[in-house]
């Protein structure tokens, strides 16, 4: 059981706009997060475009639980636990593929794409005819699953609210990422995966509301030209929106950044898809939404990136899962997303812009991960773990914008920490709940 003092001490700090550094490398909190947070949250697993055809599947994780996300012959998507009902062996040991069914290598139990038990070898001889009701012994489905805009989520809590209810007002902003075109999004290739010695919450904290770090962390990418902003503080005069479960940042400085470098025809086409309030937001001179995080660990980034002097910058978009592996250890999953009906040329330029800026080799990503690891490793220290971190930015000086057309509290700076404070409040209240 967790030390009740630990949680209440952290909660007190968060209420004051502070946070003890130790939260970024604590085995005790990791176990608690597994049970109370990830097992009760809507976890993003895959995008439908990764499994376009009948029989397609990918293997995905919620912390330590492995799931197979499949598309059956009736075009239905399923999320089933990747564990045979006989001895628990993984029935799928690859990341991706196409199959008629899943057969366990240990004793040969066979399951359909929806998880239904099809065959038990030597069933009549070993168990007796009709002694086992196959309906009771299929692969376990995730207690809840949901799909929004092609994004497949699962929740391990059978009593969880629906995905649609959970997303709630965040959809108003997630629209900008997912609803730019009639055809929707597709994943380019497969997600990049890599393991970093950093806590998942640092990544979520960064994407949910850290417009502040760019001017110093990413200074080199402005000098070298991949970040096409006038200066590294391009989010200073921006907007940050804080909601209980979602935070997002927008720029509002220069016209290039505001369109995130989407070419004019794509901008015009997407404006027809947004509702009047969404258009009203854009018409205030703010950018398309850039960085965001949906609690707990699904992040978004849509931004312009330059990769050649021969062509204008191109927009790129990435979805993220920060999968906790252990205290202070995270597997990053980075999807590069693009409009399915965009031209091949656009997809190619968007990919080039992505790869030079984000992902395993991305020049902005490299320095983010470096920061996070150099916070995580020292956070174990006896003295360091108790260090109180200042999370007060904006508290004394900012009030929400009165006539903001969207949901949530919008603040007239992205160099602020409202969305981060909201993230930590949600995090601690989730851990406090039995």
């Amino acid at each position, binding site marked *: 059981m967790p030390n009740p003092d630990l949680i209440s001490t952290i909660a007190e700090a968060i209420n004051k706009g502070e946070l003890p550094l130790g939260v970024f490398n604590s085995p005790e909190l990791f176990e608690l997060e597994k049970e109370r947070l990830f097992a009760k949250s809507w976890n993003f697993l895959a995008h439908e475009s990764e499994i376009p055809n009948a029989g397609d599947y990918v293997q995905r994780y919620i912390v330590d639980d492995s799931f197979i996300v499949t598309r059956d012959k009736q075009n239905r998507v399923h999320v089933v636990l990747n564990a045979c009902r006989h001895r628990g062996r993984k029935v799928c*040991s*690859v*990341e*991706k*593929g*196409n199959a008629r069914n899943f057969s366990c290598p240990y004793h040969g139990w066979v399951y359909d794409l929806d998880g239904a038990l099809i065959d038990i070898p030597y069933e009549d001889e070993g168990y007796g005819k009709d002694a086992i009701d196959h309906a009771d012994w299929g692969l376990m489905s995730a207690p809840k699953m949901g799909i929004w805009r092609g994004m497949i989520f699962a929740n391990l809590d059978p009593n969880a609210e629906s995905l649609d209810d959970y997303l709630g007002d965040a959809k108003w902003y997630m629209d900008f990422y997912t609803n730019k075109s009639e055809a929707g999004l597709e994943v*380019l*290739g*497969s*997600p*990049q*995966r*890599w*393991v*970093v*010695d*950093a806590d998942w919450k640092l990544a979520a904290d960064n994407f949910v509301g850290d417009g502040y770090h760019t001017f*110093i*962390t990413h*200074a*080199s*990418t402005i*000098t*070298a*030209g*991949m970040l096409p902003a006038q200066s590294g503080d391009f989010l200073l005069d921006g907007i940050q929106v804080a909601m209980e479960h979602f935070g997002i940042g927008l720029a509002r400085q220069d016209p290039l950044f505001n369109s995130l470098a989407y070419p004019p025809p794509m901008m015009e086409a997407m404006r027809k898809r947004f509702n009047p309030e969404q258009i009203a937001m854009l018409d205030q001179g703010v950018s398309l939404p850039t960085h965001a995080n949906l609690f707990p660990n699904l992040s978004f980034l849509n931004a312009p990136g330059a*990769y*050649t*002097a*021969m062509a204008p910058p191109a927009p790129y978009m990435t979805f993220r899962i920060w999968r906790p592996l252990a205290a202070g250890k995270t*597997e990053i999953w980075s999807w*590069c997303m693009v409009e399915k009906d965009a031209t091949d040329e656009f997809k190619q330029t968007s*990919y*080039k812009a992505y*790869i*030079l800026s984000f*992902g*395993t*080799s991305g*020049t902005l*990503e*490299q*320095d983010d*991960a*470096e*920061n996070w*690891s150099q916070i995580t490793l020292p956070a174990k220290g006896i003295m360091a773990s108790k260090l109180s971190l200042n999370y007060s930015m904006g508290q004394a000086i900012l009030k929400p914008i009165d006539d903001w057309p969207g949901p949530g509290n919008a603040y007239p700076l992205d160099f602020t920490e409202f969305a981060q404070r909201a993230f930590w409040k949600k995090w601690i209240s989730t851990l406090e709940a039995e």
Partner: protein
Amino acid sequence: MTIDESLFRDIEAFIYHEAELLDNHQHNEWLELWDEQASYRMPVRVTHTKRQKGQEFQENFGHFDETKEMLGMRIKRLSTSTAWAEEPQSRTRHFVTNLRINALDNEQYQLKTNLMLYRNRLDDAGHDLLSAERHDVIHQVNGEWRILKRTIYMDQATLGTLNLSIFL
């Protein structure tokens, strides 16, 4: 076509020289080894069944997919004082072995090499080991070897290193 001994030794010396430049962080000199039309790719690898193994390396999606200009931008960044992932720099050792050379018909040569890359940083006693097979195409420009194409086939689907702020 057989490769004569002196040509083999010449190409071998070239790839050792290239590795030395990387391990010495002589990035600008390293960039000069690349042809203007060069491509530098590391496809994302996805574990598939043996039967579907042909789909393992993503044709159109990589960890790197660089033009020479993009390599140059990365190197320009590394030359600044705020490229934090390489401040301080990674200590790397490129062990390049198992050189196989195949002459192509247009005075280009296809090389296959095995790469074991040791990477250490800061005061950590541990290390990252990145293992890969590299497929290169090289040719001569004004009597100097230039790399036209490199494809790096990693031996990991999930990469075990903080970032790819280094070159392979």
